[in-house]
């Protein structure tokens, strides 16, 4: 995987890891915070409920205190003490009740019989045990009790908060028990105060209700004496909605952060890897033999910039050193060539000189006999042969020196090899094994590549003479290079010769020129390729020509 992608994925992974770690923790903490806030808010509201309940009871107490001190009640108590009470006493409770905001009021005699009832006139003359029980409570205490009411389906009991007052007239006592029923009005007041759904619940079930409830809720219960209780259900919908909103915001931020991380990761990795990739490409070019490759240091910074600058200096130095080395090698090569050429030329000159000196000596003696003629003829023939030899040496050297520049074109390597190998038929114990992979394309000069192939096959044939064997010609490819291999089954190349194998005039054959492999190596180099001699187990040599592959595109 490329460094750029690795870095980008690392950025993405790091950002995702942060999101995966941070979001759940943040949400859990947020939920806990919201729940604490909700609990705190409910606690405050319950304080308000308690205050409202106290105020409610205080209203009842105040109304009953006012009634207790009223002249109207004194008049009624006075008449109620009469036996039998006059008729207006029976309706007194209704008249005393309504103006004071009470909806429960009963006048009881000291035996608990109803003298007047505002909330249930039908109870007149009858005992009212629940209300009479209130008279036994601590003085002036406001208590919750059940009161009977006339309902459309029968008598019903309803919770109320009431308090009792004793009114004495003479030796008779009249109890006034009054208060307020707990109805949906009060539930509504509490619901508006708290925002909760409020139910007033007795053993018989829900008797009053107010408020709406959506979704899950938190329940709080407030006992109302022993007869009823308030049930307040605080909706958690807002809490859930807030949590959902925050979660959505978190996810949006996380997605944005991830996107930002990816973008930044790509940008940073591109910025970081561009010099590295340029260095890699430059190194590859240098490895391929391109000298003096420069890397643009403008996009780099810090250590990378220093690295690029160092690399550029190194390539400069390398180019200079290479140039010097090449120049030195060229001088050395030419010195070697000159030495070898001189050697080659000197060899024929000795017989020529000796022949000519023999002829001059004979000529000085003036002996034009048959022996002179025969010697002259032999010497002239030897001189001519040596001259021909010199001419051939000069021609071959001229051919080597004036080898033309290749004219590259896109070639299918198999189509270069196949026509050439078609000319070879088995002979003198030699056979040919041709293995051609198709689709191996190169940029090259067909004639020069053909010459390389012919030289290599000729070398292979000569290496196996006279015993014979199989010459194997193979075309294949790697990811980057096209390969042309020619293998023989000869004795192989001596190790001391391997280093000088491709130098001109190095040969093991008595009549070899020593320029075939040098020419092949030069053609390979001029095609951007390389020619190598490899040992083949158990015996033999493989010459491998590597050329840059031409992409199918």
């Amino acid at each position, binding site marked *: 995987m490329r460094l750029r992608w690795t870095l980008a994925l690392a950025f993405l992974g790091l950002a995702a890891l942060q999101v995966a770690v941070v979001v759940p923790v943040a949400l859990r903490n947020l939920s806990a915070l919201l729940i604490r806030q909700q609990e705190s808010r409910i606690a405050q509201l319950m304080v308000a409920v308690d205050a409202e309940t106290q105020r409610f009871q205080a209203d009842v107490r105040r109304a009953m205190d006012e009634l207790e001190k009223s002249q109207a009640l004194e008049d009624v108590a006075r008449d109620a003490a009469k036996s*039998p009470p006059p*008729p207006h006493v*029976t309706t007194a409770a209704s008249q005393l009740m309504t103006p004071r905001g009470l909806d429960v009021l009963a006048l009881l005699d000291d035996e608990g019989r109803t003298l007047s009832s505002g909330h*249930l*006139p*039908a*109870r*007149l*003359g*009858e005992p009212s045990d629940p209300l009479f029980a209130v008279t036994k409570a601590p003085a002036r205490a406001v208590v919750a009790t059940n009161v*009977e009411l*006339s*309902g*459309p*389906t*029968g*008598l019903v009991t309803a919770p109320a908060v009431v308090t009792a007052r004793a009114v004495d007239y003479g030796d008779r006592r009249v109890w006034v028990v009054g208060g307020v029923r707990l109805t949906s009005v009060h539930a509504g007041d509490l619901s508006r105060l708290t925002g909760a759904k409020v139910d007033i619940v007795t053993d018989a079930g829900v008797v009053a209700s107010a408020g709406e409830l959506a979704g899950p809720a938190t329940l709080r219960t407030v006992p109302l004496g022993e007869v009823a209780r308030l049930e307040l259900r605080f909706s958690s919908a807002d809490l859930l909605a807030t949590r959902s909103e925050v979660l959505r915001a978190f996810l949006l931020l996380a997605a944005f952060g991830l996107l930002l991380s990816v973008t930044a990761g790509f940008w940073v990795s591109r910025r970081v890897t561009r010099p590295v990739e340029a260095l890699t490409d430059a190194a590859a070019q240098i490895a391929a033999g391109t000298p003096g490759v420069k890397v643009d240091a403008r996009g780099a910074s810090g250590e990378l910039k220093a690295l690029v600058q160092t690399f550029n200096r190194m390539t400069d130095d390398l180019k200079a050193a290479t140039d010097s080395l090449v120049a030195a090698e060229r001088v050395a090569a030419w010195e070697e060539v000159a030495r070898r050429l001189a050697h080659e030329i000197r060899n024929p000159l000795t017989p020529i000189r000796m022949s000519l000196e023999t002829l001059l000596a004979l000529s000085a003696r003036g002996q034009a006999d048959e022996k002179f003629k025969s010697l002259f003829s032999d010497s002239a023939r030897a001189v001519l042969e040596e001259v021909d030899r010199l001419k051939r040496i000069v021609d071959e050297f001229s051919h080597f020196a004036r080898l033309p520049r290749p004219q590259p074109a896109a070639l299918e390597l198999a189509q270069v090899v196949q026509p050439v190998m078609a000319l070879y038929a088995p002979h003198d114990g030699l056979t040919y094994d041709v293995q051609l992979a198709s689709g191996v394309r190169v940029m090259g000069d067909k004639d020069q590549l053909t010459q390389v192939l012919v030289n290599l096959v000729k070398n292979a044939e000569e290496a196996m003479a006279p015993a014979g064997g199989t010459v194997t010609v193979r075309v294949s490819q790697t990811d980057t290079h096209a390969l042309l291999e020619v293998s023989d089954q000869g004795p192989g190349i001596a190790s001391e010769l391997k280093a000088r194998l491709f130098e001109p005039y190095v040969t093991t054959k008595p009549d070899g020129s020593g320029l075939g492999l040098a020419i092949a190596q030069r053609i390979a180099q001029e095609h951007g390729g390389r020619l190598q001699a490899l040992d083949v187990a158990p015996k033999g040599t493989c010459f491998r020509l590597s050329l840059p592959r031409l992409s199918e595109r």
Partner: protein
Amino acid sequence: MLAPTSALAGGRARFGGTLPVVLVTKKIDARPLFADSPTDAVALSVTHTPLCQLVTLSAPAPGTLRLSPRSGVSTDEVADALTRVSQAAGPYRALLSGVASWKKSPGGLELTLSGPTADLPRALCHPSFSAHPGPFQGARTEANPTHPAGRPFLDAVTLATADARAAERLFAQRKASLVVGAPTPADDAPQLFVTVLVFPPALAPHLPAALESTVDREDLVRFFLPPPSAPLPGLLPPSLGGSADPPPRPARPSPLTPAREVAVTFDAGSDVERAIAERLQVKLQPLGYRVALRPSSREEVRARPPASNELTLQSLLLPPSPPAALAVLLEAAGQRARLPQVLSTIAAAPEPDARARELAQELLPQVPLLPLATRGVGVTAARDVQHLSRDASGLPRLDELFLAPE
């Protein structure tokens, strides 16, 4: 005593003047068939007159009665009144028991009888038979100069409604000279407005025993009915000679288990009936009855046959005749089939009223009806209101009043 007494006033009566009358009620319903509360009956009597004052009754042949309209009264008005009562849903149609049909004749209406009537001459004094003309007429209820009984002394009557306190205040301020329906001490005027409870026979014997054992008529009257009113222990009120003694109270039955649900239907416009219904809730609940309240219109209370678990409170104005009153109560109790036998028994007796009273006592345990209370018409008059008299039903006769000079 109940006849018009204009002759008595002749020497000193003074024509003229407008009488402001306040009726203690929420609203006036002056329809003849439903004029069975004191205030409604009084309001009706201003513009209507009972047939007994508009016709003369004769028997031209056995099994036949003739109603001869007095001067100024049309035969059609009389026939319409008879038709209205005969077709009415409710107990008042019993007033025409024994009358098979009627037809016009030169002398008035010829009634064909199918048997003994429910004392038709006195039954015709019931407001349900009321017809035009009345002593006062028109939108301003001015005196009717052509009234068969003669022109009223008053020039006009103004009717207004108020609650008891407001009526008392208006009276004190001399803005009302006559207050009708306010609580007043009992007097000797007839008390024929009765309230009874009709129950389905299927609920006997537990329910009647429960009611009799727990419902205290004295308490009902004392707590919930404005005076003048009285307990009604028997079918006939004391004003018609009925017994005023309370019947022996039966033993309190054991409570029903499980509780039985019953409904009490009553006139939604009547505070008295509502109070009694709620009292029944309180009284019957310990005995295992869960009593639902079913307030209804007065028409529905009269017309709808009660369901098997339905108790019906009925407030009726009884006619001023024991046989007719007994007939109305039997009809209210759904005992119409008994009427021919009962009326024959009464007619055959030498003292029909006495026989009717005896039968009322005998029939009380047999009919699914519980008499509760009876009311009269409470009337408070200013000092300048002279010659205040009552008719046979106990209603004040406004046509005989006159105002004393200032």
